[in-house]
Each structure stands twice: as C-alpha cells, then as structure tokens.
C-alpha cells in the first residue's frame, strides 16, 4: 500500500513535468521553425523497467511570405546546417542575415554552412547589377555566379536529437547525412511558422489536469485506508 502512494506520487510528478512541456509549446506558438515537443510517456519494457518515450514532432509548419531575400524556408524534410561554438547544429529557422565579415549567418550569428563550408558573399555585395537568388535545390547565385549550395541534412536518428536554444538541434552520436537533391525544396522570401496547434495543446493540458486530479485522489484514498489500518490495533 505504501508502494501505491509512491506510484501515484510519480504520476503527479510526471504530469507536472508534462505540463511544463505543454507550457513551453504554447509559449513558442509564434517562434519561427519551432518543432513541437511531444509530452513524454512512461512504459514498462520487457525487462520490467520503466522507460521514457520522448519525441519531437517534425511535421512541417506553415510557410508564410516575408519577401525578404535572406529568409529561407525548407519545404519537405531536412535541416539547415549551422556552425556553432559547440560544433555543427541543425535548424529549420532560415531567417538569415549578413555578418560584418560578409558571411550568411543565423539570428544568433552562427555561420550557415554550404557544401564548401561557410558561405561568404563579401566580395559580391557591392555589385548593383546582381542580386542574391536561391534555387529550390539550394544553389545560391549572385547574378549568374554560383557561390555555393546550401547544405541540407537529415538526422540519422531523429529520436536522439537534443535541443539547444534558438530552435537548433544537435544530433547525438549518430550525426546527420546530407540530404539528396530534390528531396527538399528551398523557398526564398518565406519563413516556416511553428508547428504548434493550440487546440492539441489545450486538449493535452485538460488531460494532464484530470490525470493529476485522479492521482491526487488515489493518494487521498490510500492515506485514508492506511489511517483505518492504524486504527485496528486500538482497543
């Protein structure tokens, strides 16, 4: 019976943790390129141990037009590869800018990688006859000159990815591989919205609240029964 109280208390704890996840999803309703964190579930595996099932929902978010030449969105699978202080990371947020030294960088200032490393547009910037265009395959051209091709990658094991701030992912031990041409399409002047559906999150929140309530009631009943058991010995 004491064990029952522990089990129910663990239920309370995991519901609260899941609510934190739902709260984070809802707070990021308008974050470009944000991918939903699926609330985790606990299962007992075949060795009788508790296992956590956690996942990220990589579903495509809506693409909205911004008309900014340095806003890129990926339609289909794949991620932009960026260079950070902690090694390469993947992101779906393609709102880029030009750094002081003429590289294409993310909002946080991390260099965006092309097939030949960081993409430099420095020496081409002052030419008024040319403009930066990008084909759906990710070929970056300045006028007719091909500068580089955006590196688009897929995770080898998406379930092992770890989030870092700024809608970036690190890929864990398995790393990533370069996506084949044609498996994605890059849209210039678009950004990908967050893939959060508020109705789904609301539903999840109601469910968590109800389950929390049930676990709380179970603890109360067990407490009552234990109290009665303690009464038995009294004369």
């Amino acid at each position: 019976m004491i064990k029952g109280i522990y089990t129910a208390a663990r239920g309370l704890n995991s519901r609260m943790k899941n609510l934190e996840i739902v709260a984070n999803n809802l707070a990021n309703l308008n974050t470009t390129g944000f991918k939903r964190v699926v609330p985790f579930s606990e299962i007992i595996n075949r060795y009788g141990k508790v296992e956590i099932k956690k996942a990220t929902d990589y579903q495509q978010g809506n693409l909205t037009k911004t008309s900014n030449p340095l806003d890129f969105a990926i339609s289909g699978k794949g991620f932009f590869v960026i260079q950070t202080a902690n090694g390469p990371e993947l992101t779906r947020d393609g709102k880029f800018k030009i750094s002081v030294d003429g590289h294409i960088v993310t909002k946080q200032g991390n260099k965006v990688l092309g097939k030949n490393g960081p993409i430099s547009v420095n020496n081409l910037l002052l030419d008024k006859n040319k403009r930066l265009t990008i084909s759906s395959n990710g070929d970056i051209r300045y006028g007719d000159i091909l500068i580089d091709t955006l590196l688009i990658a897929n995770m080898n094991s998406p379930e092992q990815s770890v989030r870092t701030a700024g809608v970036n992912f690190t890929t864990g031990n398995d790393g990533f591989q370069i996506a084949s041409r044609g498996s994605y399409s890059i849209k210039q002047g678009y950004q990908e919205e967050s893939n959060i559906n508020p109705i789904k999150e609301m539903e999840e929140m109601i469910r968590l609240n109800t389950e929390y309530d049930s676990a709380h009631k179970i603890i109360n009943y067990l407490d009552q029964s234990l109290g009665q058991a303690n009464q038995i010995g009294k004369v």
Partner: protein
Amino acid sequence: MGTRALRTAASGMYAQELNIEVISNNIANINTTGYKRNKAEFQDLMYQQVSVNPVSSSTPGINNNPSNSIQVGNGVVPTSTAKIFTQGDITPTSNQMDFAIQGDGFFQVRKADGTFAYTRDGSFKVNADGRIVTSSGYIVDPELTLDENTAGITVSKDGTVSAQDSGGSSYVLGNIELARFMNPGGLKALGNNLYAQTVSSGVPIIGTPSKDGFGDINQGYLESSNVDIVEEMISMIAAQRAYEINSKTVQTVQEMMRMANNLKR
C-alpha cells in the same frame, strides 16, 4: 515544482504582449506614407535536462537511468522586429514634388550629422536654399538645387530631373539615385520614416532608377503604407488568443499546485 511552467507561461504572455504592441503600431501607421509593417520575431529559450523519476521507489533500476531524463524548455524570448518590405499601393496626388518608388530601392537622404538615412517616403519639398528636402527637412542626396527662375520640374522614371524656367526652356538639373540593400529586413527604423543601415542589412548599393533591378520613380504619386488592416486584425485576434491560452497554463498549474497542497489532510 511547477514554477518553471509558470515562468514559461509568463514568458509566452510577455511575448504576445509585445506582439500586440507591434501590431498596434502597424495599425496606427496605416496612413503613413511609405510605412512598412513590422513583424515581431521570437526564439525559444534554453532547454534543461530533467530527470522524470525524482520520487524514491523500492523498485530497482528506476533511478539513475540516464535515458530516463527529458528536455524541458524554459519558454520564449522576443528577439527582434523585422520589417516587411512589400510594395505599398501607389496613389496619385498630382503634386509635382511627390515621388513614389515602384519596385526596389530607397531615396537616400543626409541627416544633420552628415550620415545617410534611407526612406521610401517621397513627399519632398523645397527648402529656403532651394534644395529638395524630405517632409521632415532632410536633404535628398545627391543634392538638387532649384534657383529663382525655376518654374517647375519634371522627373522621368529613370530619375532624371529636368527644370523648366519661366521662359519655357528646359534643362537637366541632376539625377535622383536610389539605394538598395541585400537584406532590407535588417534595416534599423529611425522614426520619421527613415531607416539606417546595420550589420544585418548590408551596405547600400547605389544605382539609377529603372536600371539594374532598381524601381521606377513616379512623379505625382505617393506610396501608401503596406499595412493591410484585415491582416493586422487577424494577427491581433491570434495574438490575443495566444495570450489567453498561456494564461490558461497559469490557471492549470495553479489548480495542480492546489491539489498538491491538499495531499496532506
């Protein structure tokens, strides 16, 4: 416990509040010549590794298992407001000192401190020295000076300014040039319809209107703001609902905390 969820929800509410501020500024500027609408940008905060099984248990193997930890986020932070540089509607004014750019580019103006600023607002005037200035008095660069004999000016689509004197003869006075940016969304708004270059906008590329992808100059027209009232209203409804749903998170956490407080009778 739970306070993280409260803080996360609060960060979401703060973000939506800022969103509403940006939207209301867009709506307030619906009749501002050459105004470009803003959009608030957000980014998620750092994630934390949290163990899922903090309650001690008699079952072995539940604790100290690294795979039994999850990543919990800390909410959202507003990062920037991005300008959306789509073309505004061109409206006729029949005023010879009104200019609208149809297409890419900005008029270049010189501020009092000698630095340059850029604008899409082409409602120009002539100042006391005969120079062409913006409605707030900044000198248009390259400078164009009219003398006392000038009866009127004509500006062609490629920016060539010709002046007619009182005798009826006409001569070329100069050219209006336009500036373009790699990333106009990165320009900094200075107020007074002016923008300044930043690191993220890139350096200005100066050129002749109608050539090399620059826009046309239209004399006797002004560019309205590109704010679409329906779109702003929809954004406002969405922001308000998003604020509300974050406040529901606060409510739910509060309810759950109350239940936790009632565990001990």
